[in-house]
């Protein structure tokens, strides 16, 4: 999908699959095995695309000792065959790799969860219970005239969010107003927001302040002079802006909000109220390391989202017991999959099989480590954007010396019994 120009190996329009925002206009410089992002990338992309020429050739290992791939594969298979309660976690992987892991889990049984699923399941508190009225990136770009940002400045997690979300010349939006409820926008956010009017409501209780806005949008009056640390008049002005918008959007990052489930529910309620008279949508942030893609895959393959266990060919979903955190307490084998970044597996007393980024630094050497290539750098693949609708093709930037997760996992699976 990428267009490789002649020397000095500049690749334009590279798709970035890391944070879930789905930027696809990166310029990347390659030189042999070295890879480096150029120009306008966010720090996260710069860090994660970087591959040094002098990097050591990664190798498979067992208990920290270098071993052949064949031995590592055989050891992994033996561990899985003897496992009582495997946990397939991390799941930072492209769609095809996800398929391979799912099939491995189907064969050996075990729990499937992604490292970033906490935020996703906070949002599911709303979307599974009441549903919600949502929108996607291109709609926000062109229609949104009032954006309510709840919680922290999302630029920290999604470096180019406002640049992508609110470009200067939308097709329809006559003006742009951004209301920050919670943390104030940082310098980077302000720079990206350019001509948009910004308002900051420094709430100390986000849920209460958001509830107040919901109430106001529904036509109620507030009981006191301040709610959640925000003056009632300011909340009323925010509610008026939202109800007066042609297309209001509410966004938050569930992963960074301890009260994310309630924020998601209240944001949903707000958008429901707004749509009675005008148009509005929720735009939940998230989606790092293709969590949305893997979740979508599970939904169409198993009918359940992440945090699902396959046990004897039957899958069951349990958002409590099958979260990584909970399942770690019950598992005897952890299959750690993290192709996008060198994220070490969580503390775990049992056996660890890691299909992981070659630069992963383990707190203790795993029983089996099979380094894998990164989708979008070492091999092609597909990832989903945070909105769960758009998926993007990642291309290879260099000749792969490492297997993809799909290849490595299928080696371990071997021939189906």
């Amino acid at each position, binding site marked *: 999908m990428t267009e490789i120009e002649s020397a000095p190996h500049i690749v334009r329009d590279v798709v970035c699959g890391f944070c879930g925002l789905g930027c696809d206009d990166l310029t990347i410089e390659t030189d042999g095995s070295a890879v480096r992002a150029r120009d306008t990338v966010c720090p996260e992309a710069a860090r994660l695309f970087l591959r040094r020429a002098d990097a050591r050739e990664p190798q498979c290992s067992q208990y920290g000792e270098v071993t052949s791939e064949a031995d590592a594969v055989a050891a992994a298979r033996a561990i899985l065959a003897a496992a009582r309660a495997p946990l397939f976690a991390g799941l930072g992987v492209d769609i095809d790799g996800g398929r391979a892991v799912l099939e491995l889990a189907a064969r050996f049984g075990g729990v499937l969860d992604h490292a970033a699923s906490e935020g996703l399941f906070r949002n599911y508190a709303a979307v599974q219970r009441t549903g919600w009225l949502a929108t996607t990136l291109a709609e926000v770009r062109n229609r949104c005239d009032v954006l309510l940002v709840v919680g922290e400045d999302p630029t920290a997690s999604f470096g180019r969010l406002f640049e992508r979300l609110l470009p200067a010349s939308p097709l329809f939006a006559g003006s742009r107003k951004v209301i920050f409820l919670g943390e104030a926008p940082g310098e980077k956010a302000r720079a990206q927001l350019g001509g948009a009017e910004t308002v900051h409501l420094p709430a100390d209780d986000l849920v209460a302040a958001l509830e107040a806005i*919901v109430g106001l949008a529904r036509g109620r009056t507030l009981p006191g002079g301040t709610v959640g640390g925000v003056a009632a008049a300011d909340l009323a002005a925010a509610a008026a802006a939202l109800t007066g918008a042609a297309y209001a959007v509410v966004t938050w990052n569930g992963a960074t909000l301890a009260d994310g489930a309630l924020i998601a529910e209240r944001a949903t309620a707000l958008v429901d109220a707004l749509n009675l008279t005008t148009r509005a949508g929720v735009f939940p942030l998230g989606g790092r390391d293709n969590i949305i893609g893997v979740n979508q895959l599970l939904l169409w393959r198993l009918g359940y989202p992440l945090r699902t*266990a396959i046990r004897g060919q039957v899958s069951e979903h349990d958002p409590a017991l099958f979260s990584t955190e909970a399942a770690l307490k019950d598992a005897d084998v952890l299959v750690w999959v993290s192709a996008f970044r060198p994220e070490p597996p969580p503390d775990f007393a049992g056996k660890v099989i890691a299909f992981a980024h070659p630069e992963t630094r383990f707190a203790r050497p795993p029983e089996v480590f099979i380094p894998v290539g990164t989708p979008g750098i070492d091999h092609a693949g597909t990832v989903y954007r945070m909105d769960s609708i758009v998926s993007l093709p990642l291309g290879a930037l260099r000749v792969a010396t490492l297997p993809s997760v799909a290849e490595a996992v299928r080696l371990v699976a071997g021939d189906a019994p």
Partner: protein
Amino acid sequence: MAGLHLKPRAPLAARADLSGVTPAALATLSLREAEQLAVPYGGGRVALAELFFVEGGPDGVLLIEIGDERLDHVGAGLASGEIIVDGVVGAWAGLGMSGGVLRISGAAGAYLGAEMSGGRIELNGAAGDHAGAASSGSRRGMSGGVLAIHGSAGALLGERQRGGLIVVAGDAGEGLATDMIAGTVAVGGSIGPRLGRGMKRGTVFTHAVPELPAGFADTGSHDLVALRLMSRRVPELGAFIGAATHARRLVGDTLMGGQGEVLVV
């Protein structure tokens, strides 16, 4: 066959799921068939007899000795009969039960009595988080029956509860009655922060004014005839309310248009 008596062979090394293992389901099985019931265990399924010594027992009763904190879904879907656990259970005990009695002498994991619609759960020990609550994705928590917790309860007790009665002798954790739709909770001990956010209706009985979110309004102390009625009509509340005729009434979550109440007696 008659009732069943289960005794763990050893502490469970992985989570086991006893969904569907109820007196009514067992009534149609022979002892041999019961032993062969496939029970989800870890990443697979094993025969019930691999995990437990299985013996017959008195009619209509499932007796589980010792229990295990990894033993999940005990009494899930119970509609009649009695399950007695002489020990602890894992998560989801009594999930969605509609009748019968579940007695647990020890502690229970998360989601005890979640979405139950009838029957009675008696828990001697402490309950985990989300007792009487809705499971993730479900709109409604416990809707009927009685959940009596003699120990303390964890966070989010009665989250999205829409009916029935929860009585906790000990303390309750944070987020009690969050998004509660209806029903009654009485907590004898202390109560964690952030009670009742998004509470629509329902009643929380306490003995002291808890920390409440912004959307609660204090209506003051009142002589409430309903107290006298509930004290007599609801045996579980008789001791809690006693002869009290007055309660402080705090109403919320008004920010979300709710009319739930905390009654301090």
